[in-house]
């Protein structure tokens, strides 16, 4: 008897479910394709939503990234322990070399200061740093980016430069309240104005999802050698000038590839540069000698 009572509504519910199921695929697929279109048309809106979702998930990502970071640290500690003698000898050698550099640096700094005073030079405004932890490596074969555990509430803003221990690794492209996304210099969409330190030649460094970004917009007669240092030029007023980025690793024909100074795959902590150009209007003007 009880079975009889339940069977009718159950059949109806099953029928409803079947209808919902039949149309859910089409509707959801339509929704997904629509979202793709919306993302293409209104990237700002979609980025805002993305930032909120990442914000909500960030604490979980933060917790999950800690064990992996601990294991990585343990492994590297064991590695360094096994080679502690060799490392010590190498460091002593390096120290001797660096002490010579230090003497040169002091001399140059004093000279620089004197010359600046003579020229009445206005230095770049002072900039401060924020330190953040990498909580997610969003990269893949198609995108190169990281998520960090600081956001708008901590003073992180879109466009700020992000440094690893040694050099520039990318810039902030999206800020949530407690999290932010860093677009790495190797990403397909990354373009940063740079300077070849030796020749003061201006160029743009552009990623293509490989490990070595390319140097773009160089004049045909530019003399670039393997080993040349590439630093930020400060054009555009977004970044301070002179942040080290990488070293020219290959210069064949017109394709020049730069090896980033910072090993991008092993970044654990990053520094965010809080920088304000003194006069952005000045910095926006094309500098003489800038190709194309």
């Amino acid at each position: 008897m009880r079975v009889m009572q339940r069977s009718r509504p159950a059949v109806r519910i099953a029928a409803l479910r079947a209808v919902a199921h039949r149309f859910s695929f089409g509707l959801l697929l339509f929704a997904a394709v629509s979202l793709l279109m919306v993302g293409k048309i209104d990237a700002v809106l979609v980025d805002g939503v993305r930032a909120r979702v990442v914000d909500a998930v960030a604490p979980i990502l933060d917790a999950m990234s800690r064990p992996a970071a601990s294991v990585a640290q343990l492994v590297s500690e064991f590695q360094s322990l096994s080679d502690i003698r060799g490392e010590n000898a190498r460091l002593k050698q390096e120290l001797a070399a660096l002490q010579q550099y230090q003497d040169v640096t002091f001399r140059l700094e004093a000279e620089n200061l004197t010359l600046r005073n003579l020229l009445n030079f206005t230095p770049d405004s002072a900039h401060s740093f924020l330190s953040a932890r990498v909580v997610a490596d969003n990269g893949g074969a198609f995108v190169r980016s990281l998520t960090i555990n600081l956001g708008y509430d901590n003073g992180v803003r879109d466009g700020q430069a992000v440094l690893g221990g040694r050099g520039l690794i990318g810039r902030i492209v999206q800020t949530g309240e407690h999290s932010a996304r860093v677009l790495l210099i190797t990403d397909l969409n990354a373009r940063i104005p740079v300077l070849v330190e030796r020749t003061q030649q201006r160029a743009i460094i552009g990623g293509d999802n490989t490990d070595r970004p390319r140097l773009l917009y160089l004049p045909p007669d530019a003399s670039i050698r393997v080993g040349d240092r590439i630093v930020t030029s400060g054009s555009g007023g977004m970044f301070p000038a002179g942040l080290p980025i990488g070293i020219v690793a290959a210069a064949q024909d017109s394709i020049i590839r730069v090896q980033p100074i910072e090993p991008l795959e092993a970044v654990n902590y990053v520094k965010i540069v809080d920088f304000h150009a003194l006069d952005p209007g000045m910095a926006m003007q094309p500098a003489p000698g800038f190709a194309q």
Partner: protein
Amino acid sequence: MTGDLLHKLDLAARHAAPGAVTLILVLVGVTPTHLPYYSAIAPMLPLASIYYWGVHRPDLMPMWLIFTIGLLHDVLTDSPIGLHAAILLLCQWVLLRQRRFLVGRPFVVLWGGYAAVAVGVSLVEWVGTGLYDLAVAPARPVLVRTVLTIALFPPLAWLFIQVHRGFLRAGD
């Protein structure tokens, strides 16, 4: 009455296991590994879960759940929003039509089916991202990523089988 409610709660929790495992794999997929060159070829972990449950318990992976998982994957991996939602929905659609050829067959057949799905997914990803960004992503990392995604299926499948046996009984 209380027993009935508890039983329902218990069943609901058990039935949530496939979705939960897939969501966890999305999160694990973006956890920094600190392995050199890994991030460029990071495999697509949730695909294995979608495939396994799509073949064995499609009733526990409704389309809306797959859509949500795809969206979260897009948000966290910085893919164009909606791309993986669409890809995973299409996967499920294909699986619902092909699963009777895969259920109860030897593991190698299951793995072969997964390989075909993974290759298809990578192709759609590559074309989709290319159209979206109007740029061609280098093919080699995509290829390595696809191979890695396929190679990681057996250990992941082992995990799913444990979840399957531990949480879900036949006829639940």
